């Protein structure tokens, strides 16, 4: 010690100076720090505040709950489309720690391959990667229980269908992005979807909002409207059963039918077979099955059209229900022979009723000729066009709530003579060829005749219930009034009833509904145009238009049985008529058809 301090004395406190130099250096560094921190926290504050917010402040869309869809059952309504919450599992690979261990934990829950999941968790070029969709609440709870950094779940609504496949094509479905596709879901997407809310919040790195911050903004979502359909659940299920059986029996390409309330234009049942399962729409391989053919597939309807031709002629006063005329067996129009296909076709005296009963093309053409004063001319064409287009609205989309532009028009040729055999075309139109219309158009046009002349726009929506509980009843909308006179309405009803009676006597006993019910109809065996020209020799569609009621018609029914391959006789009587009868029996038995007083 002593010697050390001796030296200290000889080399006086050099260390003190050196300590001060060192300390001065430290003070200098502190000074630099202070300047730098002042620069960061005071001068560049706004920049870093913004940088922080762009990281921390996250904007969320708070999804609005999609409205449910209900339908009538008995006197009440039941939900047929509901929501269920499922979860989307995602990862932010930049935050994930120990991807292998995390993958090993996730694999038993979400399935798949551990290595693939780990690879996804390691992908550093993204901050959002979806690991699995549609996790159940139980799976979600399990995943969140692991508290894996960088791995989270998002809630998403998915549709569920208590009635399974029922009315699938009428309803459509909701895709993974929450958008309605096809049917009601697409047509009323905006109403059903509601308005999503917004949440701007400071969050942790996993996006979980932290406690209240002045930067947080929250706009509550407005949930979607619920829609009550005019569909009757029991009737719809019954109709679908009938159509499936018919398709099985006739081996048809497709069987469609619509049941409409004659007095309101409301669709009570509407179905096609084959159909699909809306809960698993993603597994459908042929998307054409999504379409509701009753509104999307116009065809040449065939002889059911004769009802409209007759109504037009009656309304124009060129015939009466009891008018008789001489049928020469064929007419020559624009140089082409128009003749019948009916089996007991012969020349001789015919009536309006026999025209319908035997489905005489010559009879329909004769009625068209009467509109022109004895021949098919511009006046005849204009008259038929006017009634088909403006009164019965055939070949015109109805505006029913289906899809977005999904509903088809069909084609009704204009009456103008363009020099390509327009009179022959119109002769064809008069008995149901050379123009196309959907089943819905046919049944709606028929309803306007049956109810005394009021054309109601067809509708599938009965009520709309807002998120706050306000219920709006959708009243039937009159699209055209006095389409035909009350007298013509009575005449057509009577002719259809008589036609039905005749068919019973001809051996179709299943059309007998007894004395308490009024049932009428018309068959159609429609040839199918070959896109290459002419008509297929071996393919037809069996169609039917009819009604069932008591003192007056209550339900109008259209049946399109497309390209049946197994049946006897003509397709109309062999495949359209029995489907109609089954539907009519179901309605009489189970759905309160009011008997005659």
């Amino acid at each position, binding site marked *: *010690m*002593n*010697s*050390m*301090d*001796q*030296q*200290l*004395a000889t*080399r*006086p*406190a*050099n*260390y*003190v100076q*050196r*300590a*001060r*130099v*060192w*300390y001065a250096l*430290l*003070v200098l*560094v*502190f000074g*630099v*720090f*202070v300047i*730098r*921190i*002042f620069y*960061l*926290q*005071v001068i*560049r*504050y706004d*920049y*870093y*505040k913004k*940088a*922080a917010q762009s*990281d*921390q402040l996250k904007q969320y869309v708070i999804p609005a709950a999609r409205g449910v869809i209900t339908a009538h059952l008995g006197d009440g309504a039941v939900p047929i489309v509901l929501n269920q919450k499922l979860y989307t599992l995602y990862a932010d690979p*930049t*935050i994930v*720690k*120990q991807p292998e261990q995390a993958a090993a934990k996730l694999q038993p829950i979400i399935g798949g391959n551990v290595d693939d999941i780990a690879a996804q968790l390691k992908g*550093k070029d993204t*901050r959002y990667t979806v690991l699995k969709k549609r996790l159940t609440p139980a799976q979600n709870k399990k995943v969140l229980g692991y*508290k*894996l*950094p960088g791995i989270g779940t998002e809630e998403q609504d998915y549709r569920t269908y208590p009635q399974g496949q029922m009315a699938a094509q009428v309803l459509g479905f909701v895709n993974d992005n929450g958008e309605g596709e096809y049917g009601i879901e697409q047509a009323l997407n905006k109403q059903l979807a509601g308005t999503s809310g917004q949440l701007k919040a*400071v*969050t*942790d*790195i*996993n996006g*979980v909002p*932290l406690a209240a911050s002045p930067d947080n903004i929250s706009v509550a979502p407005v949930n979607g409207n619920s829609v009550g359909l005019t569909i009757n659940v029991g009737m719809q299920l019954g109709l679908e059963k009938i159509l499936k059986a018919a398709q099985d029996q006739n081996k048809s390409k497709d069987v469609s039918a619509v049941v409409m309330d004659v007095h309101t234009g409301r669709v009570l049942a509407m179905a096609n077979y084959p159909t699909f399962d809306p809960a698993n729409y993603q597994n459908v391989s042929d998307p054409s099955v999504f379409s509701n053919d009753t509104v999307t597939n116009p065809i040449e309807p065939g002889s059911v059209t004769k009802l409209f031709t007759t109504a037009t002629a009656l309304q124009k006063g060129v015939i009466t229900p009891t008018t008789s005329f001489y049928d020469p067996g064929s007419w020559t129009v624009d140089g082409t022979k128009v003749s019948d296909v009916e089996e007991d076709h012969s020349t001789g005296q015919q009536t309006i009723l026999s025209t319908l009963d035997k489905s005489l093309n010559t009879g329909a053409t004769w009625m068209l000729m009467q509109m022109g004063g004895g021949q098919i001319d511009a006046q005849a064409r204009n008259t038929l066009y006017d009634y088909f287009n403006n009164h019965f609205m055939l070949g015109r989309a109805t505006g029913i709530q289906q899809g977005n532009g999904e509903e088809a028009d069909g084609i009704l040729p204009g009456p103008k003579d363009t020099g390509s055999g327009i009179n022959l075309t119109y002769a064809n139109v008069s008995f149901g060829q050379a123009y196309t219309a959907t089943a819905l158009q046919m049944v709606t046009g028929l309803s306007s005749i049956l109810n005394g002349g009021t054309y109601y726009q067809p509708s599938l929506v009965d009520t709309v219930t807002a998120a706050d509980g306000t219920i709006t009843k959708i009243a039937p909308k009159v699209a055209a009034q006095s389409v035909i006179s009350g007298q013509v309405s009575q005449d057509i009803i009577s002719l259809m009833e008589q036609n039905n009676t005749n068919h019973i006597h001809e051996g179709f006993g299943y059309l007998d509904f007894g004395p308490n019910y009024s049932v009428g109809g018309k068959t159609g065996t429609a040839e199918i145009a070959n896109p290459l020209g002419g008509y297929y020799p071996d393919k037809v569609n069996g169609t039917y238009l009819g009604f069932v009621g008591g003192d007056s018609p209550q339900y109008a029914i259209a049946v399109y049985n497309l390209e049946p391959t197994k049946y006897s006789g003509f397709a109309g009587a062999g495949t359209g008529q029995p489907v109609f009868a089954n539907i009519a029996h179901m309605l009489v038995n189970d759905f309160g058809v009011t008997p005659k007083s």
Partner: protein
Amino acid sequence: MAELRTARYGGQATAPAGEVRRHRPDYWLIVLALLLVAVGLTVVYAITPALSVTDGVTGAHYVIRQLIAVGLSAVAFLITARIPLRVWQKWQMALLIVAALGTLVALVMPVLPQYPAHRWIRLGGLSLQSVEMVKFALLFYLGTFFANRYQKGNLGDSKQTLYPLLVLICVAGVVIGGIQSDFGSTVVIVAMVASMAWLTGMPVRKIAPVAAVLVLGAVLLIASTPYRRERLATYLHPESNCLTTGYQACQALIAVGSGGIAGLGLGRSVQAYGYLPEAQDDSIFAIYAEKFGFLGVMVLLGLFGVLFARLRSIIERAPDMFSRLVVAGVLAWLSTQMVINVGAMVGLLPVKGITLPFVSYGGTSVLFVGAALGLVFQISHYTSFGTRNVQRRKDGGDEDSGDGRRLRRPYHSDLSGRS
């Protein structure tokens, strides 16, 4: 009195030497250390909910562990403050061997996948960072080394002084900087060697070439390892790779900058919620800056500044060269870590992964820093007459007379315990 005045104004040249007295120790050391520890605990406590989000630990996990570490650290402080310095000096080689063995154990121990570096000795739930033991042992080893050469006057002798030091630095560079990938601690050790060499009076012409070689070596080291190259690139352009290697640097700047003048408030840190990694540990300064703003940072820097000033003043009045060197080693250790840590958080230095002394969560660091401060506290008991002028100037305000009463009325004047 006249003599004192002369000493006061005339500098050290006229000061009598050789008389050492024991007196009241520097309690400021304890006060400052406790304040810094309190700052750390407060921040760790405040970000507990954030940590439980990101690390998935329960509530007070970190606070409780840190409290235990602080308790152990206090015990270490009491032990090192009590055991006389000469005893430590006597066992200096044994201590260094223990530290070297510890390092060896850390090197052969299996590592955890999330912490792949061979830096830890794990015993059950406990883990020790071996390099902290090395720093502690080096205080005595280097102190003895330089004090001996100071005494012998062969500080300028390359063979006796410079080469052994170079060997030491190389070993530290290879083992700690290379194998353990702990560049930050290597810098701390080099800083300890350099400050002691400087303080003992090693000629500048000896220090300068070594410094040049070290800088060159550091550059080579950085250039040779991709991991360091990346960090350097990150340091030069933190914005350009915010999502990858520069992530921590970027998030640290955002945390500091968004704190503003007054800070977001104690419970208001957002960056701790998973944005800034190591929020409780190496990045705690940035979180503190986010919470307390520029004003708070000035207070924290002030605490460190005052602490370092106390150490400097203890160096100046310490009774002998060995004591002086131990305090110098502690000052080099604490100040270098603080500079590296804060420098990284404010974007002036590359991110190094080193703790902020007293403040950062981390048991080993707190434990050995406490032990080191205990040594300083013991040394602050004594003053050599040679530096009484400094004593007067620094502490005169504490005593009303301002006449060096403290020197004339020591609490103890027994020097028998010291040679």
